[in-house]
């Protein structure tokens, strides 16, 4: 019992976010009726979340180092425009166009890294400048017009689903089922291995009851997530992309030397420097990686819309930063998790989705989102003080 209390207290942060998400879903399912929780709408909601969630994953690491990136909306729009223009106007293949967009994103990241890491200009200013500049460059690249249509392969990134392995004409997607089983198996395997290693070294492990609860909850979440997709059209490629990026970045954050140094830089840059961390080089690398991530989000966005528009990505930075902060990242640096950012992104897009189902006036949509962001962070801070 004591152990349970402790564990709850220790993980209260992530539970609180999940509870908030559940609360929001519950509220909308009452307000909008069953349509909100239908597999069709929820899958749709997941797809809407993807671009912001991808950006938020990377943004978490930027925020962890005590920096910020306000340019992501413009840069994502720019990368999408580059890919679309290369394809539509110059006849490039999808792979080439996408790679060019990612290369452009990395170049932008290097530009930011240069100013932030080596010239010590605050990231807020550097990326504010880029936010303006790249909004302009989008107009330059596209000539101010919407660029479409994209080829089938390009659109697939944003719109298509993993083919159904079973090909049965029913209501149910077999690939999603298989993926769910595989994900649960992998999760169980890693949990068991980690537990075994900790036991072998004589470290503390969670009590059996707690462990069972955790295994069941996570497995249920995985099953529920893929179940929703299975009862709709299956697993979208874009969602797989998000999962891949999230796993990779989580691993980077938690298990790699690079990730560890990012947390140290944000937590206390002086201590990090005196411990031999090359702050400039690490920040430079991070900004380049983040540039690639943002451009991937831009490509997915263009693919989903089947077009590059001049307004693509507007306000994306705000959604992404809000997602990170709701997810527990501290703007002071040193604290934040990738999983938190994804849940935060899901909370933000659930609000968008639910409110548009309700046909709420756009005026109120902005006001409500703003207030919820404020409340979420306030609850977090007042909870932390206790």
């Amino acid at each position, binding site marked *: 019992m004591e152990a349970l209390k*402790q564990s709850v*207290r*220790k993980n209260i942060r992530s539970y609180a976010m999940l509870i908030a998400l559940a609360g929001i879903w519950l509220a909308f399912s009452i307000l909008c009726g069953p349509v909100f929780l239908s597999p069709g709408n929820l899958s749709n909601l997941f797809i809407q979340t993807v671009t912001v969630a991808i950006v938020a994953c990377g943004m978490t690491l930027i925020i962890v180092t005590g920096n910020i990136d306000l340019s992501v909306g413009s840069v994502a729009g720019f990368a999408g425009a580059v890919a679309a223009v290369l394809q539509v106007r110059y006849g490039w293949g999808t792979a080439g166009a996408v790679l060019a967009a990612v290369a452009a994103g990395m170049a932008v990241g290097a530009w930011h890294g240069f100013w932030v890491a080596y010239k010590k200009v605050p990231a807020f200013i550097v990326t504010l400048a880029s936010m303006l500049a790249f909004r302009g460059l989008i107009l330059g690249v596209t000539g101010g017009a919407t660029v479409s249509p994209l080829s089938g392969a390009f659109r697939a990134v944003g719109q298509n689903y993993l083919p159904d392995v079973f090909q049965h004409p029913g209501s149910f997607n077999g690939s999603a089922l298989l993926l769910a089983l595989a994900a649960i198996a992998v999760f169980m395997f890693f949990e068991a291995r980690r537990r075994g*290693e*900790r036991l072998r*070294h004589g*470290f*503390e492990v969670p009590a059996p009851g707690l462990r069972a609860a955790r295994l069941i909850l996570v497995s249920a979440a995985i099953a529920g997530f893929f179940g929703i997709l299975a009862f709709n059209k299956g697993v979208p490629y874009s969602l797989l992309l998000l999962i891949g990026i999230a796993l990779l970045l989580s691993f980077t954050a938690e*298990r*790699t*030397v*690079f990730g*560890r*140094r990012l*947390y*140290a830089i944000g*937590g*206390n840059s*002086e*201590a*990090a*420097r*005196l*411990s*031999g*961390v*090359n702050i400039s080089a690490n920040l430079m690398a991070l900004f380049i990686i983040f540039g690639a991530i943002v451009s991937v989000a831009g490509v997915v966005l263009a693919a989903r819309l089947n077009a590059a528009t001049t307004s693509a990505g507007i306000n994306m930075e705000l959604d992404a930063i809000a997602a990170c902060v709701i997810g527990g990242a*501290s703007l002071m640096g*040193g*604290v934040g998790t990738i999983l938190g950012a994804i849940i935060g992104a899901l909370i933000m897009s659930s609000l968008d989705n639910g409110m548009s189902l309700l046909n709420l006036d756009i005026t109120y949509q902005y006001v409500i989102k703003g207030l919820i962001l404020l409340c979420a962070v306030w609850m977090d801070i007042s909870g932390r003080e*206790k």
Partner: protein
Amino acid sequence: MSYLLEVKDIVKDFPGVRALDGVSFGVNTGEIHALVGENGAGKSTLMKILSGVYPDGSYGGQVLVDGGEVRFDGIRAAERAGIAIIHQEFALVRQLSVAENILLGGELHSGGVIRREASLAEAEAALKLVGLEINPEIAVGRLGVGYQQLVEIAKALRKNVRVLILDEPTAALSEDESRNLLAIIKGLAARGVACIYISHRLGEVLELAHRITVLRDGRTVSTEEKTAMTEASIVTRMVGRELSGVFPEKESGTGNDLFEVSGWTAEDPASGMRVEDISFKVRRGEVLGIAGLVGSGRTELAMSLFGAWGPGLAGSVRLDGKELGITSPRDAIAAGLGLVSEDRKKFGLVLPSDITTNVTLASLDKVAARGVIDENAEILAAVSYIRDLKIKTPSPEQRAVNLSGGNQQKVVLSKWLMTAPRVLILDEPTRGIDIGAKFEIYGIIDRLARGGMGIIVISSELPEVLGLAHRILVMRSGRVSGELDGKTATQEKIMTLAACA
């Protein structure tokens, strides 16, 4: 008669730790009451309750002022009741000037507009109370820790205090400054201010206090008149057993030259601090002590040798006869140097991260393969230092910010021990560390030296320098003013060399 300030059965829990478990004691008007105990015994936590940092409702038990129960909902409420605290970790705004810091929260103004001249005069008056003669208009961040502490005390003195709580006020001060401060405290007590004085320096405690309360593991062990106590009896009560506080026997013959600094000059144009033309050698297995007053350039010397201090370097540094071209701490670590800096919060710890992360930060290569950290290896490393240095914590996953001051210091030390340096520079290594742990650290320094490491100990505690060092370098105004043999040196000889000529 009731006490001016009294606490009864105070209990305070943190997640996983009971920091206080039934503490009671009282303070009279004009009394200097010392509070002693090991690192993590709960002293700072208790003082934070008294001063309203932990508000009413977050702890159990009673706080009474003049015999009536009080419930502070914040620091301001405690200040209104006349209780002010000087924290173990400084609470100054680095960017603001000395004067602005002293007047912070009690600014002199007319209609919201600061009265500049009056403020400066007031700040100067407050500075005079602590014997500090500096320009009150310079930014606090540019002062060394020693001066910052005095500014902080000046700030508290300006408020109308009935009870002044000092949490290890002399930890950062030199002998001279400490004596100055002790005199100030005695003066305050004579004027009827009650002082609660926390310190690990038992000599000071016995000199200063009227009564002494000993805490152990969050409980009151005893409160007694100073006259009934000796240093040994305090220590026995603190640790619950007898402790022989003797320095390790110095090994007589040390090895050949290991580390050589010649003509070292460094200047920081921003602060105008410089060290000039410094030359010394450290032999294998030798402990070199560096003594000097606060501001004599010892920290600047250490930081500049480590590649962590301003440009404008000249001179040469050799390890094993090979010239090192150190331009960053990274180079220094790679070359085999380590530096435990004097300010653990600013330069030592990543406060939001856990103990494990902090311990391994400077030697991640040792617990990682191809850039991926081996979690278990990392925890094992942390656990071994927690054991060796007796770091008091519920788990290696405790965040550094939640540790007591002394235990934080041990975490920083662990980090540098883990890099296994060939030359280790320790800048005030036992600041804020309890007496038991101090001798553990002396033992570790001795063991490392016997293992062939070259060690440089910068310390303002003369007995520490005298007890540890084979040779002692004394600095004055950024230069070496003399060198003494560890066997024949005395406090007087050091002070003569250190004092401004």
